[in-house]
């Protein structure tokens, strides 16, 4: 907007476009014209005169207004296909009637400061606005000023979908109950062989509503699919029940011609079959709909973690606002026991936060000023003020939901065969049904027409494309959802497949096995030297340094409440240490060589220095006034969970190795403490050589999973068969990884591998079941057993089998949500 005075005007949409950032340009009648986006340019190309000779920009085009002032800042799009990033703020609109309303509202929104892109959708009555520091209140005001009404919409209106889904489930249940109520008398009359005048017409009267009303979804579904020249389960059920009804109807209307039917092996007309088939299939569908709703529940529950309202602190005044009105930079107050509304950074206060719902780690995490918090996690006993760093679709929760959705849309290779089969399944079953009918009619026993039609109906009814179609997606849905709940995010189905094959887990040391942040671990005092002197002197000298070791010392002093004294004439001695003057005395902190150069006797701590070295710790000697005060040892400590996690990986038969740029003895000490064998330690590997190391292991035939923090080991993660980024926190969208662990615990690595194995196992079971079910069910329904055993499947049994099969597959997938992984 700031450039609008310098900018030229896009003649198509009327927006200001800075020439430097124009998406397209054209020359028309000697005049240079700039366009905000290629769509406008394309519209212009078709009809330039329309835009150049009219006073006002055409209002009907385009349906979207894009203002870009800084193309570098616009969200990056990589070379592969991407979904357009969801908007920053969504508004639900009221009072829109036509396409020109769209343009009016878009223009009004585009005038609001900070708006980069506004798009209004007439169909959904929503405005999606992208930009920086958007204030929903101002956006709403702009829309009201242009004659419409709006309110901020939740960025994902899961509630609506859920209500509709519930209404659908209720509808299926209602049909099931009505069908059952009408079918019970039909079954009783038929089975008990009750004979009374007009019996068949009574049965017909009871069955017709079941067929026409309860079965209406199947009938209309079948008609609709046939219009598209496709077919699905509805088609099979509709044709199957219609065949059974037609047979019964024929027997009712022309009893004389079909006497054989009444006295045949089946005994009677088939009204009860129609009723029972529809009742059972409807009931199966009801169970399946309910169960399938649960398969995707994990992501919905994750999104529901964020509270609907937040306590906004502005100018010292606290007030409650809807979450959608929170913007980046706002200060929010989080009371004890409240859920943290958005991602942010703690500005004041101290508390512990339960992050288990996002990271899967059961222990609460301490949070103090400067620490990052994740929206949706639960605040403990302290009150904290949090500055919002991400809202709406940019929060970790929203990104997790998006990652999970992406993974759920991908297909494992194992699904390819199932896909090919389901693509032709229904027509194939119809073909089998026709062949069955002809075979029975031609070579079957009398009454041939009856047998043929019964077998025909059974084949159509027993076939269950759903079991096949649901086998993989439901398992992926439940598996990835379960993962998300434990802080394990799979990038795609392929990652799940690969993780199962892993034979060797290569762990980066720093930040993966260890905390990645050195801490003071030991203090050795020369007798009589108090803590204040030892730690205070060291902290005073290290204060100005940004080196991680120095930070560890300063941090330790602060934690102990020791205020470092003032330093004069400060000298840094590269590779050795630091010296300076404290209270008139010359003080030094550094390694043994520094002390030798200065002629300070360190013989008293020789043993300690050697011990620290063997433990992988860095010793820092502290001296003052020509005398040694003591030794501080600093080390990057192992995470408490590392040792146990590595043991569990080994128990699963996986080889565990460690990769680090550190010196061999430091690496060996850490490896020994966490239970990694010395021969599995790859030390002194430069960051740039880590990928080559992975390749070497792969050449040995290992399927390698690399676990790293994704910061400087991205090439190794990318080279690995499975790249696992650990400790992502709020930055869940780590690109190089196949699996992202939100939490920092290595225990999740074993869980991720276990989950991938369990998910793949479930997919295999499901597919095997679906194949076997159809491969055995279809011939039996067609009457393949009749010549041998004289046994023929009733269409009613077929419908029960069919209803049970898809429910079984979904239930089997749902087991993944509960299964023990460790």
């Amino acid at each position, binding site marked *: 907007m700031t450039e609008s005075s310098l900018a030229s005007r896009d003649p198509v949409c009327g927006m200001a476009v800075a020439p430097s950032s124009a998406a397209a340009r054209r020359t028309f009648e000697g005049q240079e014209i700039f366009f905000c986006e*290629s*769509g406008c340019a*394309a519209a212009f190309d*078709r009809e330039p005169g329309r835009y150049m000779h009219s006073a006002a920009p055409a209002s009907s085009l*385009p*349906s*979207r207004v894009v203002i870009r002032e800084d193309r570098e800042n616009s969200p990056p*799009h990589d*070379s*592969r*296909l*991407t*979904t*357009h990033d969801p908007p920053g703020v969504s508004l639900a609109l009221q009072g829109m009637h036509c396409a020109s309303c769209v343009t009016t509202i878009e223009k009004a929104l585009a005038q609001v400061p900070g708006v980069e892109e506004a798009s209004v*959708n007439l*169909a*959904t009555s929503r405005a999606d606005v992208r930009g920086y520091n958007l204030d929903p209140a101002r956006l709403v005001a702009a829309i009201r000023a242009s004659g419409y009404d709006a309110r901020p919409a939740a960025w994902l209106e899961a509630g*609506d*979908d859920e209500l*509709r*889904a519930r209404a*659908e489930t209720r*509808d299926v249940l209602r049909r099931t109950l009505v069908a059952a109520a009408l079918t019970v008398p039909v079954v009783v009359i038929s089975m008990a062989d009750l004979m009374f005048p007009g019996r068949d017409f009574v049965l017909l009267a009871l069955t017709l509503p079941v067929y026409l009303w309860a079965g209406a*979804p199947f009938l209309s*579904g079948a008609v*609709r*699919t046939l*219009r*598209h*020249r*496709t077919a*699905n*389960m*509805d088609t099979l059920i509709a044709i199957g029940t219609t065949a059974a009804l037609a047979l019964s109807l024929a027997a009712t209307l022309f009893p004389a011609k079909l006497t054989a039917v009444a006295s045949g092996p089946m005994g009677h007309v088939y009204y009860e079959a129609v009723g029972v088939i529809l009742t059972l299939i409807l009931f199966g*569908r009801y169970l*399946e709909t309910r169960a399938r709703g649960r398969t995707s529940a994990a992501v919905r529950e994750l999104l529901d973690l964020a509270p609907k309202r937040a306590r906004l602190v502005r100018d010292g005044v606290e007030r409650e606002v809807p979450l959608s009105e929170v913007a980046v930079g706002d200060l929010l107050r989080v009371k004890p026991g409240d859920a943290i509304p958005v991602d942010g950074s703690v500005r004041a206060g101290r508390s512990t936060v339960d992050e288990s719902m996002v990271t899967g780690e059961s222990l609460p995490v301490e949070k103090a000023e400067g620490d990052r918090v994740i929206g949706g996690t639960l605040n403990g006993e302290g009150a904290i003020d949090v500055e919002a760093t991400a809202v709406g679709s940019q929060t970790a929760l929203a990104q997790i939901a998006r990652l999970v*959705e*992406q993974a*759920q*849309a*991908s*297909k494992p290779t194992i699904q390819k065969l199932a896909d090919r089969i*389901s*693509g032709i*399944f*229904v*027509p194939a079953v*119809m*073909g089998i049904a*026709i*062949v069955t*009918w*002809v075979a029975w*009619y*031609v070579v079957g026993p009398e009454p041939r027409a009856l047998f043929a039609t019964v077998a025909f109906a059974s084949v159509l009814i027993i076939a269950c*494309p*759903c079991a*096949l*179609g649901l086998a993989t*997606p439901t398992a992926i849905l439940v598996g990835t959802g379960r993962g998300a709940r434990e802080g394990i995010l799979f990038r795609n189905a392929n990652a799940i497949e690969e993780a199962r094959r892993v034979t060797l887990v290569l762990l980066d040391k720093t930040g993966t096995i260890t905390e990645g942040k050195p801490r003071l671990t030991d203090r050795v005092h020369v007798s009589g030297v108090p803590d204040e002197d030892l730690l205070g002197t060291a902290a005073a000298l290290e204060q100005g340094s940004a080196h991680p070791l120095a930070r560890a010392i300063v941090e330790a002093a602060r934690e102990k409440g020791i205020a470092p004294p003032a330093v004069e004439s400060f000298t840094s001695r590269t590779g050795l240490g630091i010296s300076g003057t404290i209270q008139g005395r010359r003080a030094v902190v550094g390694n043994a060589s520094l002390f030798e150069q200065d002629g300070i006797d360190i013989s008293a701590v020789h043993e300690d220095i050697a011990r620290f070295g063997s433990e992988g710790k860095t010793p820092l000697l502290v001296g003052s006034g020509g005398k040694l005060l003591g030794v501080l040892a600093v080390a990057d400590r192992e995470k408490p969970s590392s040792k146990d996690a590595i043991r569990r990986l080994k128990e699963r038969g996986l080889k565990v190795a460690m990769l680090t740029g550190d010196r061999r003895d430091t690496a060996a000490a850490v490896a020994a403490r966490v239970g990694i064998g010395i021969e599995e330690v790859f030390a002194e590997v430069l960051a740039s050589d880590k990928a080559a190391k992975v390749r070497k292991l792969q050449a040995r035939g290992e399927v390698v999973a690399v676990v790293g923090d994704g910061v400087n080991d991205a090439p190794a993660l990318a080279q690995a068969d499975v790249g696992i980024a650990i400790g992502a926190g709020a930055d869940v969208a780590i690109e190089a990884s196949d699996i992202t662990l939100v939490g920092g615990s290595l225990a999740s690595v074993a869980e991720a591998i276990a989950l991938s194995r369990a998910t793949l196992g479930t997919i295999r079971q499901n597919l095997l079941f679906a194949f076997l079910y159809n491969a055995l069910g279809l011939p039996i329904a067609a009457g393949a057993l009749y010549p041998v055993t004289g046994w023929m499947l009733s269409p009613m049994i077929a419908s029960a089998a069919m209803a049970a099969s898809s429910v079984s597959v979904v239930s089997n997938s749902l087991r993944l949500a509960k299964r023990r992984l460790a």
Partner: protein
Amino acid sequence: MTPDRIAAIGIGAALLVLLLVFFFGKRRAVAAGPGTGGASDSHEITIVVEGGYSPDRVVTRRGVPLTLIFDRRETSPCSDEIVLPDFGIRRSLPPNAKTSIEIRPERAGEFPFSCGMNMLHGKIQVVE
């Protein structure tokens, strides 16, 4: 063999051929999309979901954001979900409602979309 049996075989064979032609025969493509110079030049395409997708073929230009509005006019669970595997999208379509999905194809080619069980099919064709 009695005449009715011969007739049954004949009818069966004819039905099988009909089945093949009906389901696997060449079908006419319904194409629509933005930036292709076609009649319906807009950034939004409404796809009616009713036993299938119509249009079941959308032509669009590379790099142009496109909003697909899936207007699902049925409750049959077969069309419960829409999957655009190349775009990493699996979304549930609430019955009798419109669901819009925005995509930005960054590369030319044909990208199929289907229902959750891969039984109903459609295609997005992205041209340069």
